[in-house]
């Protein structure tokens, strides 16, 4: 082992960080102090250690002075540990002989007393020099990465990511819970601000997914469990039975015609329960895969066993299989993209808007279906009472920006409310009022769209709607829904009677986001949206290597943002699998087998489930590929049989002893 038997020769470098450090810490005297510490051969201060000349200093000194340990007192290891380890390695020394002391975040930025800060830095430097002498040469291990990617969720984000990766030649498993891919976007009529038809731009992508040789599409399926680690995930997928052979059915829909139920009788989920479907159905004409399915909850055969099953007779391809059972598929993948989307806010939680109480109060998603040509009314805006509205009030921020419900801005509601205002005006010729708190239209072409709406004669009332009521105070209000609102621009309280109310509901995490989070071992922000590794610099990564995020499961997003993020997640996944291997940081824990008593104390404590019990040897075993080096097991091992590279007792105790030496 390199330098294993030679004497310790430390090179010490203290960084000015411009004035970030030098302003508060007397770096020259720190260098002078370090020069007098045992083992220190060279001690220097330099303006920017992370610059090329700064890094070169380390290399030159290693060669010239035969240094075998490097201590750099600079910023946080999160920023530049890799930089200085790499500089050390370039000069032929094992990078783990280099140790960083954080004197910026831990000293100069948090202190004002220059003398005291300098003294503290000296203590920290002495501690680092004390520990670094015990460092060992460590190797990064390589783990191969499987080339397949799992994508969970077949909305626009999942579709975009799947196509991007599949086009690059990698294999993709796309798992969607619903019988069709398309997600929320498939329900929309038009998209803002360009008003192009959602189906026209989405369905070609859906067909591409179905047809792509590199994509295995499993709809009506759910991920049940994930094991393993970056590059080598083992995934179990449950495929629910459709009772129709997906490989055989071509979606001719003869069976739907033939069904014992002559009229559609059951609530159509895709149409937000505004229309009806039969027990054998297809969610919408462009559903992908274009395969019918049977809902066993409503099918006569499943309910009574007494159906003549004309559907079977009508099928020329013999696609029906009423004995079909759920199938479990096991796949191995190198990376996972979670694109599970969002849930619209349930406006019944804000009773003041009368949703569920007044039939003519709608959610925005319901109105998307009403204005859609393939929706339950063929694109005509007909209310639940059969009338066509002459006036419509659109309430922004329903469920959003509210301490009682959700604090966050759902980001897309202002824009889709504008879009719906335009569409309602266009389809029904109604007067449209938009009730908004603040109009938020940042985005390419968004503000322009807002201006267009202003010119179209849509009314805008700045104020939070206090209540939707049918209590008429004037003859004009009879039979209407009255919006009570303080118009904060006009400065008085208004009552605006309308025929129809549209609630622009916000975006929420899905109900099962906690289970999904646990399954993929990722975190949630306090709202319940999945948490990215870094809000700015790692927006699609998660805390778990190899698991990425795309779309609204990470936070409210419109279509362009979801697509962009899906592309980013696909790129991250491809960067991982294309390399073919990952290097594991060696600061992992390890068990000396002959020292382990098999007491199992460590096993339940590992947050990464990296420790298992080997029943044959009756000892605990750490999977180094899963270990993140958190040290929990090391601290908890009652017999001291788990050690951690870079954090062995001798290293930590030396550090403590030195830092306290002058105390």
């Amino acid at each position, binding site marked *: 082992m390199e330098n294993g038997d030679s004497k310790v020769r430390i090179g010490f470098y203290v960084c000015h960080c411009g004035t970030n450090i030098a302003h508060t810490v007397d770096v020259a005297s720190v260098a002078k102090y370090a020069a007098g510490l045992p083992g220190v051969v060279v001690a220097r201060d330099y303006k920017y250690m992370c610059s090329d000349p700064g890094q070169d200093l380390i290399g030159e000194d290693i060669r010239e002075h035969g240094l075998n340990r490097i201590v750099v007192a600079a910023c946080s290891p999160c920023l530049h540990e890799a930089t200085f380890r790499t500089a050390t390695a370039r000069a032929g020394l094992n990078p783990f002989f280099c140790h960083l002391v954080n004197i910026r975040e831990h000293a100069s930025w948090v202190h004002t007393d220059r003398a005291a800060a300098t003294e503290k830095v000296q203590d920290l430097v002495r501690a680092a020099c004390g520990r670094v002498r015990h460092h060992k040469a460590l190797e990064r291990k390589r783990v191969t990465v499987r080339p397949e990617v799992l994508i969970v969720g077949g909305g626009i984000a999942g579709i975009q990511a799947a196509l991007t990766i599949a086009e690059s030649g990698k294999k993709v498993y796309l798992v969607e819970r619903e019988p069709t891919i398309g997600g929320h976007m498939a329900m929309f009529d038009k998209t803002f601000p360009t008003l192009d038809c959602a189906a026209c731009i989405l369905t070609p992508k859906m067909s591409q997914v179905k047809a792509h040789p590199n994509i295995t599409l499993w709809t009506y399926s759910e991920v049940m469990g994930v094991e393993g680690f970056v590059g080598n995930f083992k995934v179990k997928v449950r495929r629910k039975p459709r009772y129709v052979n997906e490989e055989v059915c071509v979606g001719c829909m003869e069976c739907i015609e033939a069904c014992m139920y002559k009229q559609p009788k059951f609530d159509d989920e895709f149409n937000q329960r505004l229309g009806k479907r039969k027990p054998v159905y297809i969610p919408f004409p462009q559903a992908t895969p274009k395969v019918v399915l049977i809902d066993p909850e409503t099918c006569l055969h499943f309910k009574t066993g007494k159906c003549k099953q004309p559907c079977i007779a009508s099928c020329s391809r013999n696609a029906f299989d009423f004995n079909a059972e759920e199938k479990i598929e096991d796949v191995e993948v190198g990376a996972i993209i979670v694109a599970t989307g969002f849930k619209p806010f349930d406006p019944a939680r804000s009773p003041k808007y009368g949703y569920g109480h007044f039939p003519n109060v709608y959610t925005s998603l319901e109105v998307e279906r009403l204005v859609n040509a393939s929706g339950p009314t063929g694109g005509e805006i007909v209310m639940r009472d059969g009338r066509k509205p002459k006036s419509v009030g659109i309430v922004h921020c329903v469920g959003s920006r509210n301490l009682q419900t959700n604090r966050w801005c759902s980001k897309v509601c202002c824009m889709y409310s504008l879009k719906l205002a335009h569409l309602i005006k266009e389809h029904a010729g109604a007067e449209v009022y938009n009730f908004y708190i603040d109009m938020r239209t940042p985005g390419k072409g968004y503000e322009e769209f807002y201006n267009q709406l202003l010119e179209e004669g849509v009314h805008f009332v700045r104020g939070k709607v206090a209540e939707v009521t049918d209590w008429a105070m004037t003859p004009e209000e009879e039979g209407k829904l009255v919006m009570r609102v303080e118009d904060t621009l006009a400065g008085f309280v208004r009552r605006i009677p309308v025929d129809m109310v549209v609630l622009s509901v916000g975006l929420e995490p899905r109900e099962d986001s906690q289970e999904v989070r646990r399954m993929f071992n990722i975190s949630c922000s306090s709202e319940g949206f999945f948490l990215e590794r870094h809000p700015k610099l790692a927006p699609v990564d998660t805390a778990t290597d190899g698991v990425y995020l795309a779309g609204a499961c990470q936070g409210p997003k419109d279509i362009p943002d979801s697509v962009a993020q899906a592309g980013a997640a696909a790129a991250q996944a491809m960067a991982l699998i294309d390399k073919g291997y990952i290097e594991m940081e060696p600061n992992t824990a390890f068990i000396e087998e002959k*020292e382990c*008593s*098999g*007491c*199992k104390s460590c096993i339940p404590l590992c947050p990464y489930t990296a420790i298992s019990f080997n029943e044959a040897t009756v000892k605990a075993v750490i999977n180094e590929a899963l270990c993140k080096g958190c040290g*929990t097991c090391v601290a908890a*091992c009652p*017999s001291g049989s788990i050690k951690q590279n870079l954090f062995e007792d001798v290293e930590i*105790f030396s550090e403590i002893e030195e830092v306290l030496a002058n105390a």
Partner: protein
Amino acid sequence: MPEKPKIAFYWCASCGGCEESVVDLAEDILMVVENVDIVFWPVAMDFKKKDVEAMPDGSITACFLNGAIRTEEQEEMAHMLRRKAKILIAYGACAHLGGIPALANQFSKEHVMEWAYDKCPTVTNPSRTRPQTSYKDNGRTATLPAFRNVVRALDQVVDVDYYIPGCAPTPALLKGAVVALLSGKLPPKGTTLAPDIALCDECPRKASKPTDVGYPEFKRPHLARIDPNLCMLAQGFVCMGPATRGGCGALCINGNMPCTGCFGPTSRVRDQGAKILSSICSSVAPKDEAGIDAVLEGIPDPVGTFYRYGLAHCLLRRKVSLNDSAEVAAK
């Protein structure tokens, strides 16, 4: 005929159990007596301190010293035996780790004296007489050794070559040590002459411990029935086994009592109590403060539970000040 190796036994702050363990060698003691000369063993044979003083330095092959060091006299004897013996062995938990006597380190010297000679309900001492280091009566002076501020393990007073753990050590360990001495096949200096793996390794109940033991409560052995087949920790009894060196053959477990930790930590652990604390407390089932407190109420005496033998060597500072006793600072 070559001279037989000379062996000494001595006791300091101890209960006498370690001496018993020598006698517990039973017929094997004949093997010992046959092969060695016992030159000093105050508990069993008539030797005086001056006899040892008269021996040349290094003339005793090995000295087995049990008990912790609390008094000036114990300190003096430890220093003298260190000089006279080639090999000094800390014998038993008190010499090894401080043992039960070191639990007194929770209290100041004054606190100890006050309790022992005044406050203790069984003490009758109306004049509140306290022991003095010297007392004159009729022109003659009687002396007592000074009582130090803290109890120390032997290696906190003198350099120690080997350790034999246990309260008391098992005869098998002693026999093993004597055989090693006689054969000259001794491990590196500083070794504890017992297996370097925790007790669970040899525990007959090892297989019955679940992998995910979360403690909903802790029970005390005298207050609950103990299942004779199930892991003590799985039953909620604090068992020091995972943090304690094996080698006793799981004696207490076989007697259906949890391990109390007398063999001390493995060579890899600096503080046995801290280790078992961090292990057990990490697995307390409730995650809220009130729930955790309720579980920990099942351990009313954490120091006596986790540091029953190891308080002298505990990483944490003692409650008593070290400043007024120069000799304490020596180690």
